């Protein structure tokens, strides 16, 4: 190619780049278009209006010009496949159950009229970049009124800036990384407890009571935002509870072999092993503890243990593992709400379980069902209090709320609504029940605990057991 032709080509390329840059800058600086009455969405909603009931509300004066919509559109981009399919699907089931529960009672009380909720959702395939695109699509194309973020802190950290950009009121139910409330998000509320604020407190409390001789703690955590928050939380809480930290390491998110790490831990002979994990890595560590026959009295593995799949996969080997959860069918927060004189809003755990099976749920509903349910309940409660779909009014309403529901207490920091401060994590443990059954027991709070905590039986003892079935 001649030098003249090369120069021309370069000039054309530069011109194209400049034009694209100008167009992009113009789009960013332009204010978002006001949302008109939306057309029907592409996905099937869940709406079954039946006879209404009147929940407790404290309405704020409605905006006179704000029309009563025919439906309130809740947009969700959620992990229905991929690495986080287990958590995402279970959470989505909770979302559907709560939507159905509200719609069966006529809908949300909006200016004296019951307005049903309409769910618009997409599968983000556990891909962060795709989730970001879907959230933007929900806001700009589907014109939803409220967004519920996907599961997992790493994904929410990517989708929250999108909802903030559009000043869209949003609810995050599945992110526990403390980084989420440190970003200055103004329009996002959190329903989930945070790693540094909430996690490890209840298991440590319980171990302190059950085994005062337990002194040495080993901490391992996944090297991502969630895992690092859990690691920091475990470190802080262990010191606060007077434990000695003998091991404190991160492992790669895509870990396939934890044996070098576990062998090092075994040599230190800790009393407690804290595993800050998601499901896949937590399960890997549990199986490799078994394979290496490493006996540790108390093993707390976040996320992994609090899933039915953990017991289904490991069977008798799962006995003794402790996890923190956020909701179980045994949780009866209405008892604690009544005792504290606070409002209880939404379905009880028994009702949520009923809806779970009615909507096709199989097996025991996992904690994520509660995760998803509270997101919808909080959104609905905010609308009822604000009597508006305006994001500024919704966020102000959220700051005033302090109530119990299926997933413990909802209360946010009025200065920072992305910071959930009321949440309480129940603690669970897999145990050997009567008749050689594998039992998933709630061991804290004691008000509705189904069993007492037990130290992890030795692997050699479990070897002699028959196979336990749930």
């Amino acid at each position, binding site marked *: 190619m001649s030098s003249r032709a090369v120069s021309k080509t370069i000039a054309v390329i530069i011109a194209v780049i400049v034009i694209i840059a100008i167009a992009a800058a113009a789009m960013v600086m332009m204010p978002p278009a006001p949302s008109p009455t939306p057309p029907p969405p592409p996905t099937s909603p869940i709406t079954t209006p039946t006879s209404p009931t009147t929940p407790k509300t404290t309405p704020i004066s409605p905006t006179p010009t704000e029309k009563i919509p025919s439906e309130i559109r809740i947009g969700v981009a959620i992990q229905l*496949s991929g690495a986080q*399919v287990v958590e995402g699907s279970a959470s989505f089931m909770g979302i559907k159950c709560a939507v159905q529960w509200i719609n069966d009672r006529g809908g949300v009380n909006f200016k004296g009229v019951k307005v049903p909720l309409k769910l618009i959702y997409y599968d983000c395939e556990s891909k962060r970049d795709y989730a970001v695109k879907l959230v933007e699509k929900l806001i700009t194309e589907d014109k939803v009124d409220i967004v519920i973020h996907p599961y997992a802190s790493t994904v929410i950290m990517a989708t929250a800036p999108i909802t903030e950009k559009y000043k869209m009121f949003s609810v995050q139910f599945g992110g526990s990384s403390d980084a989420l409330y440190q970003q200055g998000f103004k329009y996002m509320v959190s329903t989930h407890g945070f790693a540094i604020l909430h996690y490890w407190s209840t298991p440590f409390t319980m171990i302190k009571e059950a085994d005062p001789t337990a002194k040495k703690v080993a901490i391992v955590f996944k090297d991502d935002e969630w895992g690092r928050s859990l690691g920091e939380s475990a470190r802080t809480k262990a010191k606060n509870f007077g434990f000695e930290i003998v091991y404190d390491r991160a492992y*790669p998110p895509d870990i*396939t072999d934890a044996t070098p*790490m576990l062998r090092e831990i075994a040599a230190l002979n800790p009393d407690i092993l804290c595993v800050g994990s998601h*499901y896949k890595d937590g*399960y890997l560590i549990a199986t490799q503890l078994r394979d290496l*026959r490493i006996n540790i009295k108390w093993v707390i593995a976040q996320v992994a243990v609090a899933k039915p799949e953990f017991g289904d996969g490991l069977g008798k080997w799962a006995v003794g593992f402790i996890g923190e959860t956020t909701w179980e069918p045994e949780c009866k927060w209405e008892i604690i709400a009544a005792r504290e004189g606070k409002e209880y809003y939404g379905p009880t755990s028994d009702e949520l379980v009923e809806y779970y099976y009615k909507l096709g749920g199989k097996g025991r509903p996992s904690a994520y069902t509660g995760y998803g349910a509270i997101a919808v309940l909080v959104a609905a409660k905010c609308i009822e209090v604000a009597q508006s779909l305006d994001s500024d009014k919704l966020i102000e309403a959220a700051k005033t709320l302090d109530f119990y529901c299926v997933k413990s207490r909802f209360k946010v920091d009025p200065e920072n609504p992305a910071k959930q401060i009321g949440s309480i994590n129940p603690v669970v443990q897999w145990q050997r029940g009567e008749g050689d059954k594998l039992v998933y027991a709630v061991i804290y709070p004691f008000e509705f605990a189904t069993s007492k905590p037990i130290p992890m039986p030795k692997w050699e003892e479990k070897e002699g057991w028959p196979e336990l079935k749930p």
Partner: protein
Amino acid sequence: MFELVFQVLVYGVIIGAVYGLATMGLNLIWGVMRVVNFTHAELLTLGAYTAYWAWVLIGLNPIASIPLSALLGFVIGIFIFYIIIYRLLFSPDIHSTLVATFALGVALAELMKVLWTADYRGVPWALGVIKFSWFSIPITYVFTFISCILIIIIVYFILYRTYFGKSIRAVIWDSGAAAICGVNVKATLALGFALGSALAFIGGSLIVIYLPTGINPYMGHLYLLRCFVIAVVGGLGNPWGALAGGLVLGLLEQVSPIVLGYIPGVEPLSLTPFLSFLILIIVLLIMPEGILGRRR
């Protein structure tokens, strides 16, 4: 300390043998036809899925599913060779096979996702452990190692005691001279690719034993990087180099977390991949042909 060193060595050798076997196919294909097979990751994954479905549908454990994996891998390898590879092998653009195998890999991964979803699956096969006073090793790991040794012996037998193996070695050495000597180069290339594919499938089936829930359409990429490191360190084009490289990497992955753990402020497990590639660069600088590669 002795117990820890012993455990590390044993686990390192076992996992190294699996890595080596998983890489032998990549090395063989490079050796025979100078093609970097980016589909290797997906062939490993398909081998893992073969083991999974054999477990779920007919109750075969991963070791017992090796013959099935080998057969499937061989057939798919023949198919890929004749449909894609052979048509591009003599293309004037030397990168066309690279791009084609990369594209095929992506297509296979997405096809797996469509067929089986991106859900994580596993084979919960456990047979207990062999326990010594200071050390225990899962029985499944022992079976895996024995299987690796047997397969390596079979591959050795094929390469050094059969006409087909002789023709593969001849083509690796000099395809032009092999043709002059009457070797059917095209058939040799096809069978070489198919054998490489079969080895990848077998490697995938064995990797399943270490991954309780890790089978998914994209799992192969975790191992593809390892395979490239192993192939280069061991000697590109030399199947035994893959074994040597695999043992090096297997031991490195077990030893480095312990050694790196002594450095303050360092996360040893997270640094192990960095160390692997650092070793790769050093080997390339000192011995560009690898440990068992052909000296020029």
